């Protein structure tokens, strides 16, 4: 165990911290889940990219810095500490990119990664369907072989697609072999949303922002190079991505440490209004945020030694999503009657409530923990 940073890591931290101090907008940007806010966020992503800070862990040739996982962690910590804007590009960068690096052809990597890093192309995730939520393997959207055209025609509907109304591309699973079993016969496609046969309808989330979309496919044509990995291998690739979504990459500990810090500041302002239980609940949340950060150090240590995120990601998913709810419950308790107001904490509360639902509900995650980590019978 060695919990000291190297001089190189400390230098990287200083660079990031200073750049953010100079560049993070003084006023929060409008919500990235509205059309104008999304545009403002893309402008921010562009500046981040110019500073080679949009994808620090990627190879230099794709816009990154070849940073290791420790530097990635430092970047995330500083990013959240600085209160920098939400990453509206995160579904591409954190979910699709790992799959592209592992399963993509060199041509696909060269084609898709640079515009993803710069924000020139933005990606939404096409997993869920009206009848396939928790039961992801129930996907019905299908891709039909078009031999004449040398590609595939897509049919069906995706839904709850985060920021789908503003993105340029979608990655998603489509059924290519209707005769195969539930998990088999699915293929991972990369689809531009602007092509014929694709219709996108944005709709409101709980907070009213148009952060969701239905995406309808009515014979949209894509060529063979829109397939990531092998035909029929979509489930396996998606599950590799899912561990990223549940675990480290999307939910960096910096986010919860920063939230805990904001909560402590709220306590200092509002302690007079807070009931006696809130002090203890707040310390619980602070300890949980530190626990998450410390557990991440263990995960990154294994990852730096070459381990892949596995089923342990379910532990992190349950923990961070419920910690996020707790942080916002404590904030509501601190706010007392003002918790009724539709402010940044109320927005945060509603956002946090999505955590136990998306990326596999926590009920599913607990099943996974019990069956795959504890060996309990199905």
């Amino acid at each position, binding site marked *: 165990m060695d919990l000291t940073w190297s001089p190189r890591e400390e230098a990287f931290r200083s660079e990031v911290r200073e750049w953010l101090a100079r560049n993070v907008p003084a006023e929060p940007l409008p919500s990235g889940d509205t059309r104008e806010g999304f545009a403002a966020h893309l402008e921010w992503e562009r500046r981040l990219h110019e500073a080679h800070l949009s994808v620090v862990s990627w190879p230099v040739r794709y816009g990154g810095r070849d940073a290791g996982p420790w530097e990635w962690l430092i970047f995330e910590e500083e990013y959240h500490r600085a209160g920098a804007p939400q990453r509206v590009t995160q579904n591409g960068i954190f979910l699709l990119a790992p799959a592209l690096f592992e399963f993509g052809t060199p041509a696909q990597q060269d084609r898709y990664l640079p515009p993803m890093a710069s924000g020139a192309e933005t990606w939404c995730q096409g997993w*869920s369907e009206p*009848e396939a*939520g*928790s*039961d992801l393997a*129930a996907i019905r959207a299908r891709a039909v072989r078009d031999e004449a055209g040398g590609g595939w025609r897509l049919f069906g509907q995706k*839904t*709850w697609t985060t920021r789908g109304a503003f993105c340029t591309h979608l990655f998603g699973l489509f059924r290519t072999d209707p005769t195969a079993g539930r998990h088999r016969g699915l293929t991972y496609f990369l689809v531009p949303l602007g092509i014929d046969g694709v219709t996108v309808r944005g*709709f*409101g*989330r*709980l907070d*009213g922002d148009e952060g*969701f979309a239905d995406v309808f496919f009515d014979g949209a044509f894509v060529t063979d190079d829109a397939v990531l990995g092998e035909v029929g291998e979509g489930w396996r690739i998606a599950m590799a991505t899912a561990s990223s979504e549940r675990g480290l990459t999307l939910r960096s500990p910096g986010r919860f440490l920063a939230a805990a810090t904001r909560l402590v500041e709220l306590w200092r302002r509002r302690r007079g*209004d*807070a*009931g*006696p*239980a*809130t002090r203890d609940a707040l310390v619980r949340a602070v300890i949980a945020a530190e626990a998450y950060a410390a557990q991440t150090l263990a995960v990154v240590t294994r990852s730096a030694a070459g381990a892949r995120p596995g089923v342990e990601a379910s532990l992190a998913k349950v923990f961070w999503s419920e910690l996020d709810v707790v942080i916002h419950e404590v904030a*509501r*308790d601190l*706010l*007392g*009657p*003002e*918790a*009724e*107001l*539709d402010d940044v904490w*109320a927005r945060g509360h509603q956002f946090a*409530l*999505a955590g*136990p*639902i*998306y990326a596999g*509900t*926590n*009920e599913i995650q*607990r099943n996974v923990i019990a069956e795959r980590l504890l060996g309990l019978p199905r």
Partner: protein
Amino acid sequence: MRFAWTEVQESFAAAVGAVCARECPPERLRALWDAAETAQPVELPGWAALADQGLLDALAPTEHGGLGLDAVDVIPAAVATGRAALPGPFVEHAFVAGPVLADRGVRASAALGPAPFAAHAADVDVLVVGAGDRLCLLDRAGARLERCRSVDRSRRLARVRWDPGAPRPVGGPAELAAAFDRGIVGFAAQLLGLAEAMLERTCEYVRERHQFGVPVGSFQAVKHKLADVRVAIEFAAPLVARAGWAVTHDGERAGVWASMAKAAAADAAELAARHALQCHGAIGYSWEHDLHLWMKRAWALSRAWGDAAWHRERVARVVLDGEDGP
């Protein structure tokens, strides 16, 4: 000793529920959201029909044109307004202002207790406020209102301030405490109704929604969450009824009972909202689905006029510290 509603109380509640269902469907509530930003008074769905029923003046004395009922009589009807997520300052008008307002032609809202907010302040003629230890009426013309947005936009919330001399005293500390206690019992009843409505809608949904080839309601994790909501409602409801009796008959400890009811009902409604959303999944997380009409009302009323922790602390000061009253 008899701890049950009378047939009259229950049929009044059923009639109120029927009017709410007819006059206040989700579309009308959503229309109110769209008017959230306007300062002009808005029409409140269902209010004319509920006034015709006598509900709005149910607690007003008969000599002032009311029905002369007490809080116990009207709690089941208040639960029904919660089940319907009826918008408007019903509790403030009927429970808080009703017994103290001589004029039946005016509409009232109120801002009492720890929060400086009144719902629908811009839509009423008069506000019930506490100035020092006096219970006062404040004409809207004499109030300085600052519009605020509640997490439930249909509440058309405002922060209420006034110039010295504007509030007209109508009672002292005892009347002020009694008005506050009637208000929180009314809100507790609405919170119960909200919790019941969320539980019912969620049970319907999980019976119908299939995943993995079975109804999601057949999963034990879903069953146990909803069973917990049912338990919370089962044991909050009698506290609300008990508090209704207390504010009507027991002067001395009325505040303790009322605060226990508000705390328990708020916790039940928050739990119902939490599990309703989780059991609905992404479907319940969208603006288009009606679940959030109930959820957001629950979040707002659970915090309005003191949240559960505030009310527990009010109980603690009597039960643990031995202070007098409330």
